[in-house]
């Protein structure tokens, strides 16, 4: 079997995994079957041939070009009026921001609602009832009305919530790496750090993660007496959050785009006007990464000037740039980004994670075993029980082995087996301990 055949198989396996995952939330085969064989299907056009229909479709698109140029998204899938709110079209991809204590809503005409409290988020894409929402920071209550073709994906920090119809609340505090999901109705599948294989979160459950500490907690809302208010809005008794949230959260710094000033605490501000996008350079690089716009992130950084980025940008932006640069093979940029994170934010979890990433790149890309070992040991010294500890130890073993440092490799192997006896490097670790140098 030659290597390109093996390579093709790897691509095939990846696609099949995507399709299998997709089938959990959307039944393409059934939905298209319904479209093809329903009374209202295109087949009722009689003699219209598909090719002719396609030409009509292109003609309709051409007539919509002017609206596209103006910046309105008017796709065929959007004309079912999902985004209409009080006669005003909400513009996809615009940031919606709410100051601390303020609430902003995006309402869809099928009854689905996203309610943002004290943070920022945006709808990245929307096509019929397939919506992708990114919560950049803060808390969002998401109420999704179930239809047969409903498929929402809500990205919250490093977590992803896949939804077909439910009511839930998500919170993300990037400065403290704290995540919370509260499920009021329905069930969702949650994926992310410490639950990479996914976990179903059921109605009346709360999931919390403190990523820095590598800790998660799942608790029942029923035991606490939390409830959903009779007016349909969702709140915890007393309008308060859990003690853990208070301990973990620091108020995000966001600015309201309401020139009239903030409304009272707890008041809802419904979006009655078109919200304008903030400057694309602010708080958008991590969201752009989630959308796969890696090259654009790097281009924006270049346009701004890397020197300015390193010294003036917040850590989330530099992290996003480091990731994006790595993925578009601008490795020197990526490595410099991580090094600046260590320089500017030393002592933080970001700096430690940057040491791990530097170790990983140094090993994988440059095969500099000694350099990699230094970075990995630095990470392990700073975060011995951090979320990357297992991988760091595994790679440290490899690095030491490749350097010919048998004693060092065996020492790392002992540490690995003490903490992660069933880890993926377990076999290597056992081999290293019994090899005589």
């Amino acid at each position, binding site marked *: 079997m030659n290597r390109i055949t*093996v390579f093709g198989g790897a691509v095939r396996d990846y696609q099949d995994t995507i399709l299998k995952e997709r089938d959990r939330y959307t039944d393409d085969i059934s939905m298209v079957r319904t479209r093809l064989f329903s009374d209202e299907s295109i087949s009722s056009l009689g003699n219209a041939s598909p090719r002719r229909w396609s030409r009509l479709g292109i003609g309709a698109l051409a007539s919509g070009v002017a609206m*596209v140029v103006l910046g309105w998204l008017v796709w065929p899938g959007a004309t079912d009026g999902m985004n209409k709110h009080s006669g005003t079209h909400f513009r996809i991809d615009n940031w919606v921001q709410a100051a601390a204590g303020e609430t902003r809503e995006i309402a869809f005409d099928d009854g689905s609602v996203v309610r943002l409290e004290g943070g920022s988020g945006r709808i990245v894409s929307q096509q019929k009832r397939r919506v992708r929402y990114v919560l950049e920071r803060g808390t969002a209550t998401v109420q999704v009305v179930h239809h047969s073709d409903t498929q929402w994906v809500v990205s919250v920090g490093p977590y992803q919530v896949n939804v077909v119809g439910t009511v839930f609340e998500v919170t993300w505090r990037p400065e403290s790496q704290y995540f919370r999901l509260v499920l009021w109705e329905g069930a969702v599948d949650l994926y992310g750090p410490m639950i990479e294989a996914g976990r179903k979160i059921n109605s009346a459950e709360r999931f919390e993660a403190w990523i820095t500490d590598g800790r998660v907690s799942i608790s029942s809302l029923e035991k606490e007496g939390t409830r959903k208010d009779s007016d349909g809005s969702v709140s915890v008794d007393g309008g308060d959050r859990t003690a853990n949230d208070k301990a973990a959260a620091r108020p995000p710094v966001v600015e309201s785009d309401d020139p009239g000033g903030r409304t009272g605490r707890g008041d809802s501000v419904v979006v009655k006007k078109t919200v304008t996008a903030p400057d694309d350079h602010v708080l958008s690089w991590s969201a752009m990464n989630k959308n796969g716009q890696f090259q654009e992130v790097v281009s924006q950084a270049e346009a701004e000037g890397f020197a300015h980025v390193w010294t003036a940008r917040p850590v989330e932006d530099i992290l996003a740039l480091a990731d994006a640069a790595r993925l578009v093979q601008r490795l020197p940029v990526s490595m410099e980004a991580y090094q600046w994170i260590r320089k500017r934010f030393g002592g933080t979890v970001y700096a430690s994670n940057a040491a791990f990433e530097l170790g990983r790149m140094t090993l994988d890309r440059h095969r500099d075993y000694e350099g990699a070992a230094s970075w990995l040991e630095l990470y392990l010294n700073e975060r011995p029980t951090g979320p990357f500890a297992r991988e760091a130890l595994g790679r440290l073993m490899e690095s030491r082995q490749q350097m010919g440092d048998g004693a060092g490799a065996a020492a790392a192997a002992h540490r690995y087996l003490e903490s992660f006896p069933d880890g993926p490097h377990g076999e290597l670790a056992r081999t290293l301990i019994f090899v005589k140098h």
Partner: protein
Amino acid sequence: MTIVGQHKNRVSVPFIGDDEALARALQSNQPGAREALYDRYATHVRRVLVRTLGTTVDIQDRLHDVFLEVFNSSSGIRDGAKLKGWLSRVTVFTAIAHIRRRSKRRWLVYSAPEEVPEMAVPAMDNEKRQAVRDVYAILEKMPIKERMPFALRVIDGMSLQDVADACDISLATVKRRISKGRLRFETLAGKYPLLQDMLRADVPGRQQ
């Protein structure tokens, strides 16, 4: 050929018969034949669409397009025993039409309505995801006559004869195009280090 609308109260009866019988039923507008064809081959068609166009394509719209074309052109089935191959051919040519339409719309700022953001797959690292995106970025640069046979043979693993049937070309031609497609792909992949890593990955059983 007139496409007949469906009645609300029609009950679907499973079609019992091989592909030849199904092809005959389709061509004679037998009730339930279209549904039976769809039920039998929709998964296959979806798979071929994903292999040739990637996973960012709007799968449902493309699947719908294929079967619409299938129902409109079932009189073109020459050999009922090769029904699946004929379906693959319609799928490939529908995919080609989509590629050509999309390339005409490239000047639009936003991604074409047929493309939706890829659904993030849990536990899949970004590098693997990016590598597969790179694969389809390269396929976009290849001539369609090389891209299609290459994708069907290398990514889907289709037999050479099936690829030839799907692309409506001879076996000799398909071999030549796949060979050229491989060379072109490997050359273009030189600009994508992630792909180079994948292409250089150890092959099971090979000597180091």
